[in-house]
């Protein structure tokens, strides 16, 4: 596992975009954050991203939309979903293809690290 693998964070919540990159950097990853799925898909970091942390509920493209788009573009970047929504029906059947985990906010730093490691191993 490359310590400096690029992990991208996509969340419309600013506090997540502030806090999560710092933690990921503490873990030793390179981090880019995006406030929407559209911005992430259009960015030049897309190709370098080894793992993407995707919020599910976002205005515009949802996390699922982004996942579908990645699959559609044949870019199966491993996905770790994060959500504050407790409705299991929403995400349990979405954990397929390149999705590795769905972390319920608030999640612990070790759970996050574990999920990212799983994702990077998969890649």
């Amino acid at each position: 596992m490359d310590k400096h693998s690029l992990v991208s964070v996509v969340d419309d919540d600013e506090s997540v975009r502030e806090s999560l990159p710092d933690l990921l950097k503490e873990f030793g990853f390179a981090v880019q954050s995006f406030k929407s799925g559209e911005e992430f898909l259009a960015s030049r970091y897309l190709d370098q991203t080894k793992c993407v942390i995707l919020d599910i509920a976002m205005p515009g493209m949802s996390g699922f939309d982004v996942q579908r788009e990645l699959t559609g573009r044949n870019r199966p970047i491993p996905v770790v979903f994060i959500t504050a929504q407790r409705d299991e029906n929403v995400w349990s059947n979405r954990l397929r293809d390149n999705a590795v985990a769905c972390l319920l906010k608030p999640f612990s730093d070790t759970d996050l690290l574990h999920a990212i490691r799983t994702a990077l191993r998969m890649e």
Partner: protein
Amino acid sequence: MDEQDKHPGEEVKRLQRCINDLVSLLALPALWSGGDASRIARTLMDVLQRLLQLDLIYVQINDPTSDAPVELARLAQFPVTSLQAREIGAELHGLLGDDSQKWPSRSQRCFRDKNISITPQRLGLEGEIGMVVLGSERSDFPKQTEELLLGVAANQAVMALHEARRRSEQKRLADELDLRVVQRTAELAAAGEQLKLQVGLLDLIPVATWTIRPDGTPDFINQKWLEYTGQSVDYVLSEPQAWIAAVHPDDREVALTSYWEGIRYGRDFAVETRFRRVQDGTYRWHLNRAVALRDAEGKIIKFVGTSTDIEDLKQSQETLRGTEAELAKMTRVMTVGQLTASIAHEVNQPLSGIITNAGTCLRMLDADPPNIAGARETARRTIRDGNRASEVIARLRALFSRRQATTEPVDLNEAAKEVVALLLSKLQRDGVILRCELADDLPLVAGDRVQLQQVIMNLLQNGSDAMIGLEDRSRRMLIQTERDETDQVRLNVQDSGIGLNPQTANRLFDAFYTTKDGGMGIGLSISQWIVENHQGRIWAQANDGPGATFSFSIPSGGRMASQLNSVRNPAASNSRANLKDF
């Protein structure tokens, strides 16, 4: 003929002949009695022809039942057709003048190339019966004796015609009477049938039926009731209150009170009682209703009543009541479920930041060397997110602190903003773009804030649901508050969804009506109930473009609300809700 005057023997013969003729004329009634006008006229012509050897006889008899008179004629003793008779009549009018009343009693005229003496004789004093016209080629016609014979014959004919007319009138009256009797008999028979049918119906209709005299004694009770209760007619009619034996003991007092008050005050009455069914001994609820029948003066003739079995209805009402209670409970549970999910989301969002930041902070401090500046920054963010979480909790507590419906001044803008904040993440998840246009100068309304927020939440959720599956256009929703011309405060929720089906639009607010899979169809009905409890109204209309707009309006003010309107903080309402504030 003057020779007769010259020879006394001839004169005697002539007079004898005349007397014979008169005798035969006086015998005429026996001949024509019972005949009709035409027959009398023909007999008259026969007789006159035989007595007077005439060249023309024309008889016209007026028919009281018709404009056209009966016309008969003989020419040189040969009867002619009725058409020819009419022609002769017309010719005579041509010769003697239009008005037959003014014809001379005797005259010489050229009739069909012959000179004839014509004498008309009216039938009846004024000729109202008709007339006889005689003509002869003899220039001395009519002689005195001929005139006499003609007069007598005419009188006899008049009497016969009178008699005939009277008889025909009598017959007509008799016929008419007969006809009326037949008709009346038929009517009576039909009425009798009808009556029999009605009495039969009363006996057979599947509802217990009875009639009561003004004094309260039953005088009719139908088969249905007798079969149901097992009582006999004799028993029921034996005394006014015999029927009470069939009533459940607990219902007797109320039944008798209602019964006798109705009788005493002469008014309709209705009372629910349980009657014992004789077959199985069970008591079943009946609705008993009686109406007072009155005569023209308003005096009561009798009471007519029915006892309808409403047991099944009562049972289903009970069931329905139970179902309604169950549904209300489910609604509460559902609402609580939805709210819980929203609350969890609102609280978890800042908690997530707190935990991430705290974790980051610890790692920075644990590093070698410790990243003090980074740790300080993450600790600062932790505090900020903690405050944010606490704000969410405070807002939720404000939203749900009251369980009872209360009346208080409500700022609909604030109420709407709180609901929007709760629903925002769900709306985002559903891909809905919500815009808020909240009026600056919105007056307060008096009402229950939580209830009104339930309405707003329901409208927003419906709008969002209406746009599920929308792929060809963006899922836009607008929530708007405004003050309308009549000082009502109005809230609109406009969506760009599937819109309204005009055929079912009027059922939108019916309970249990839904177009959504898995919907219960009670949201709008409850919303309507709430809004109407606030003296407001709720309605839906199709947009000019796609989608629909649901609105409710509530009167502004209430004394308390207007007092508060004057002192409230003007900063309380922003023209646009800044959604990120929540």
